[in-house]
């Protein structure tokens, strides 16, 4: 049986992200959309992983961030709505 390849995620084109982290809380700035968002520790770490590694699927991200895959999948779909990832 052919199992479809897992979806690979990356930072959205043109996103140009900047961030800061204080005490486990993140703020991110998406320069092109000019949006600023506050993200939880988990979401921030996922986003940073993508920023460092280019492209990854949910499972590798979960491994790298030491988070359950299900959490990572929820995080990814939420931050996709913010145009941070694609």
């Amino acid at each position: 049986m052919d199992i479809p390849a897992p979806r690979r995620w990356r930072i959205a084109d043109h996103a140009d992200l900047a961030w800061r982290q204080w005490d486990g809380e993140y703020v991110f700035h998406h320069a092109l959309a000019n949006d600023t968002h506050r993200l939880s520790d988990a979401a921030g770490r996922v986003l940073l992983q993508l920023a460092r590694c280019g492209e990854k699927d949910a499972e590798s991200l979960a491994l790298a961030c030491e988070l359950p895959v299900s959490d990572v999948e929820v995080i990814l779909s939420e931050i996709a709505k913010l145009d941070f990832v694609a």
Partner: protein
Amino acid sequence: MTLKLGDLPREELCRRLARGLTLTTGPFRFRLQSRQAGVAEGLATLYADFPVLEDTDFRDFHVRVDRVRGPRRWFRPQVNFWFDGYAPFTPLPADHAFALLEWGMNWCIASHAHHYLLLHAAVVERRERTVILPGDPGAGKSTLTAALALSGWRLLSDELTIVDRDDGLIVPLVRPVSLKNRSIDIIRAFDARAVLGVAAHDTHKGTVSHLRPPAASVARMAEKGRAAHIVFPRWKAGASTRLSHHSKADAFMHAANHAFNYSLLGRLGFELNAALIDACDCWDFEYSQLDEALGAFEELVA
């Protein structure tokens, strides 16, 4: 010796004001024009220590507060505020003329001075530590700011915290502190020497009056401050004085959401705001007794 507004005899003040009087407030020069007695009165009471400049200088903003044309010029007279011939507001009753001038000057800065990051917060300084006070309406920020100014703290601003984009320092404005409703009585009771302007009643903010800024603060209007603390004050009846930590990320978002031009500055706004949060300890501050509050603030910068 620089000419100060208080050096001008009242007649001379009125004459210059009718033609156009140039005042310096922090980095800005305003050319003020008005024939309204209330405006002259307010300026004489509250801006006596401010430097007056020549007409040949460059002015950042040309503003005018005068009676409107037409029937409302005489019957239940109204005044309006003009910025270089453009009126951004609807007219107000003539006895709100001075308050209108203050609001108008704030509008000029908030709408145009995008060289700076403009936060909606009060800012004071003591012992080289500059403290920013973002305030939600009704939280008692203005009362606290006025009390601090009357207790030896340097006043930088009561409403507009100006962050310089080149060095991240806070730029003073030192204009009169705007007080509303009960705050006016509280401050009068707090310090009998407090100089307050004539109150304007039934404005859209209730009764409004202004506190004259300390001469020492005015004298130092060219000295920028280095931010060390961000304090979110909250007056609560019967509360004991309490300082507790406030999340930095939350403080960042609050400042960004309440700033006048955070979005306009794009990535620069983000970086300037972030640098501020990096440099400051962030606090929640609850109080009910003004004296105790001042004590807590002294300890903060000890």
